[in-house]
């Protein structure tokens, strides 16, 4: 034991001290055990963290180091068929707060609430919503700052530590609320939408299309997010940009819509605040030129989430502005259905071009009397006159003879009672009753008297304005049922055309049925051009048109029977329908107008269609006038 050697030199230490010192030395050795114990723990722990869990922590360190920030892509523009911009992007300036950069959030918000003219509690609510997020992640306090507010905040930024201005692309609607129902709007992605999408494209707070084409074409319009990944420190400050991926702008969607035509249609509907729908379609392709529903939606109300006040106002509005009436609302077709009855009668051989019926103003069937709208009666009428003057008795006779199922068969062939497959949400299929349908639905046998009502478009029949327009197009184009379409083309940011319009034929009449269409068209032309036609109001100088009016009974109430039409309460007035095509010689366009509670197709719906037609043919009419002026 070399260690103890030196003890011999210590001569003057007493025996007792010597023993005590020895004891202490042993105790020092004992404390070595404590030292070894802790050293072992530390080494084991080090081994556990660095060797056993090393890889795990290495990846955590990587994640720590790199922060990926998404860069929102500009959403695709929406254009009309002529390339006019309907919806584009504009920068929106938002106020955001980075909580960790502010040490007095309470005081900051108080000062900010004055500048933003927003209640402090509203701002606090925004912050509370983001409570679970990390403190370096900005919280949006208010969107769409005005220039004044923006300028104030920028010049006084020293007074608002932690406040930043964020530039965010937002939608700009060049034509205001025109075609609002079909364009739709954007809103913050909901929790359920987030869960539904399997892609990891979306994050909470992203804006997605909530309605109309913005929703249906979301994938094309949204583009690809870009990202910046940068090295950051623990304070959240970005040290250095590692990679930058440019966002890919969304695709440009060009609609088949003609915004000028749409505007004329909507503005005509605005006269007298008409509620209803206007649809215009190219008869030979199925391109939709107008798809309007009134009252219009106010898109700005939806931005950043609609307030509950605005929402309940929309719900309570008796004119149902939330519904796209062109395809989500169903109306009894009224007299516009007489073309179906006529075609069924001709095709089934019940009538011919020259078959006549006598109209005394009513017809007795069973134990009931079925009236013609003209109480004095039309006298002897053939098909052409029956259509142009809308003689109910003629079509009672035809309907009686062909029966309900034949009517349904031809209604279907003309596109009624089934969805048109237009690319919009919640399209209604309408209703075309059959015997079987009634049995199934009500458990009651079909009454023949019901067929009479059906033949003139009353009863169970229900159609959408879009279906009526399609029907008119089929009659006009000689029997081809095209799917109404809205998209002319989809083009990506590099100009590659990803999708372009091709007509989609959904069905076609048989040859022996097609031959009767000219006859029906003749009657329809007479409706407008004829001296006694019901829709002379729709006449456009220089263009031959064909069409049909209709009025759909809302209720049959005895108490209103004796009243003048203007005295009937609004909600019990008949719907006014009008559908037409032009030019009669070689039809190009079909226009359908439904005015809710508009009473008569001829007086309230036809002028709207006329305005659309006038606009559509404006150039040609102008050329004609010049030609007339030039040639002597």
């Amino acid at each position, binding site marked *: 034991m070399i260690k103890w050697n030196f003890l011999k030199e210590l001569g003057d230490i007493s025996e007792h001290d010597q023993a005590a010192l020895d004891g202490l030395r042993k105790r020092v050795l004992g404390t070595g055990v404590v*030292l070894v114990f802790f050293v072992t723990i530390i080494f084991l722990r*080090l*081994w556990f963290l*660095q060797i056993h869990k090393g890889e795990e922590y290495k990846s955590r360190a990587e994640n720590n180091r790199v922060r990926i920030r998404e860069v929102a892509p500009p959403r695709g523009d929406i254009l009309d068929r002529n390339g006019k911009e309907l919806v584009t992007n504009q920068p929106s300036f938002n106020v955001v707060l980075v909580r960790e950069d502010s040490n007095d959030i309470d005081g900051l918000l108080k000062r900010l609430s004055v500048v933003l003219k927003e209640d402090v509690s509203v701002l606090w609510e925004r912050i509370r919503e983001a409570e679970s997020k990390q403190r370096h992640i900005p919280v949006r306090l208010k969107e769409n700052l005005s220039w004044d507010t923006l300028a104030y905040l920028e010049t006084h930024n020293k007074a608002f530590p932690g406040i930043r201005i964020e530039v965010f692309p937002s939608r700009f609607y060049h034509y205001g609320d025109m075609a609002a129902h079909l364009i739709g709007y954007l809103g913050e992605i909901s929790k359920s939408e987030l869960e539904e999408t399997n892609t990891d494209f979306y994050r909470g707070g992203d804006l997605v299309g909530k309605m109309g084409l913005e929703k249906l074409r979301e994938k094309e319009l949204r583009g690809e997010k870009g990202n910046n990944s940068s090295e950051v420190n623990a304070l959240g400050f970005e040290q250095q940009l590692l990679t930058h991926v440019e966002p890919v702008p969304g695709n440009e969607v060009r609609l088949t819509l003609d915004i000028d035509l749409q505007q004329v249609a909507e503005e005509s509907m605005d006269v007298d605040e008409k509620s209803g729908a206007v649809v215009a379609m190219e008869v030979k392709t199925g391109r939709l030129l107008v798809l309007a529903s009134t009252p219009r939606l106010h898109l700005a109300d939806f931005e950043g989430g609609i307030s509950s006040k605005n929402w309940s106002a929309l719900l309570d509005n008796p004119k149902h502005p939330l519904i796209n009436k062109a395809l989500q609302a169903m109306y009894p077709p009224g007299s516009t259905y007489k073309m179906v009855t006529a075609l069924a009668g001709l095709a089934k051989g019940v009538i011919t071009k020259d078959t006549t019926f006598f109209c005394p103003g009513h017809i007795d069937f069973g134990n009931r009397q079925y009236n013609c709208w003209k109480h004095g009666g039309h006298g002897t009428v053939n098909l052409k006159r029956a259509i142009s003057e809308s003689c109910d008795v003629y079509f009672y006779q035809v309907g009686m003879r062909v029966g309900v199922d034949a009517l349904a068969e031809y209604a279907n062939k003309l596109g009624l009672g089934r969805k048109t497959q237009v690319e919009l949400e919640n399209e209604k299929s309408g209703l075309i009753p059959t015997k079987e349908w009634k049995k199934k639905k009500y458990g009651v046998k079909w009454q023949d008297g019901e067929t009479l009502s059906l033949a003139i478009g009353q009863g169970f029949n229900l159609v959408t304005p879009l279906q009526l327009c399609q029907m008119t197009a089929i009659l006009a184009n000689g029997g081809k049922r095209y799917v109404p379409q809205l998209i002319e083309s989809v083009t990506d940011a590099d100009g590659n055309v990803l999708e372009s319009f091709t007509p989609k034929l959904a069905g076609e009449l048989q040859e022996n049925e097609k031959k009767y269409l000219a006859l029906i068209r003749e009657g329809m032309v007479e409706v407008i051009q004829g001296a006694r036609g019901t829709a002379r109001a729709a006449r456009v100088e220089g263009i031959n048109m064909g069409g049909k009016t209709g009025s759909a009974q809302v209720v049959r109430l005895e108490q209103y029977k004796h009243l003048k039409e203007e005295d009937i309460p609004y909600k019990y007035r008949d719907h006014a329908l009008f559908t037409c095509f032009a030019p009669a010689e070689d039809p190009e366009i079909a226009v359908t107008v439904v005015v809710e509670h508009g009473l008569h197709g001829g007086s309230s719906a036809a002028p709207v269609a006329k305005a659309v037609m006038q606009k559509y043919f404006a150039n040609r009419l102008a050329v004609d006038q010049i030609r007339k002026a030039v040639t002597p």
Partner: protein
Amino acid sequence: MFCVDRRFFMNFDWVLLSLLLMVCGMAFLNLYSATYPPLGGMPPYLKQCYLLLMGAAGIIFVISFDYKELQLWNYPIYIVVIVLLALVIFVGNSAGGAQRWINLGFFQLQPSEPAKLMMVITLASYYSRKDVANGYPIQDLITPIILMAVPFILILIQPDLGTALMFVVIFVSMTVFAKLRWSSYIILGLSGIALAVVGWFFVLKPYQKQRVETLLHPVKDSMGEGYQILQSKIAVGSGGLFGRGYMEGTQGHLHFLPERHTDFAFSVWSEEWGFTGSFFFLAVYFFMLFWGLHVAMSARDRFGLFLAFGVVALIFWQAVINLLMILGFLPVVGIPLPLFSYGGSSLLTTLLGMGILMNVRMRRFQTESTLKSCDL
């Protein structure tokens, strides 16, 4: 006064010096990385150079006289340190809500650091003077408890709970080492528990309680109190076997690690040098402490033995607490890793402590007679 003879060199503890130089070298290397790039002003590594030079001077001064002198100077030293501790409360510079420093112009003195060494000297002095065969009865402990309680309370009200508790740790280590009667253990233990309970409910500030609580669930709040421990664990863990390379540690360089050149300096080392480097460093470090124990065992008298033991205990417990904190076993308490964490007061104090160890080792053969012969 200075006694320089050839035995000075013969008996000088070259082993301890080499170990110390290795530790200081690694600490310097690590400091350079942890504070890179320097933020302006005098770079910390340069400051560290001056501190090391001052420390070297301090060591030379400490080994120049017999450690026995410390016993004589014990109470004057004690009073000076207590005055400094009291002063810090009134004129001290505050940082992070606590007043811990006295500005000496060229140097920010943190009196609680030398106070730790003062505590070791005081207790060594007390226990070496009074030898009790069967262990100390409780009445003999009243004096050292009071001696310990004064700096303890002064530091507690700064407030610096971690450092204050170090005084308790030193006191317990040295007292238990000095041997107590069973009755004393029981009384001390019970009153300790009672004090801890009272302290938890009446003395501890909410943030201090929170520190203890977050230790239990660090991941729950990864940007808050548990954040530091979590980041430290990530730093250490990501080092793997061979580390990420010197100056390559992302946790440290990207400022994810808090206090990365002071309390969390070893996290930076672990991240950059991996298990191998950490093992090497700790091996050297703890061998130095074992050597310290060896020095204690070879001391020529009770005072030398207590003194050496106390210095080792002081460094050891600080190191263990700091390392366990870095490795995620203890809450963030603000105890540095002696010699390795950047901090002038701590470094100088520890170097003086090393000087004391060298002193004890050097004079292990010295008797009254040899001392006299030296004076001739």
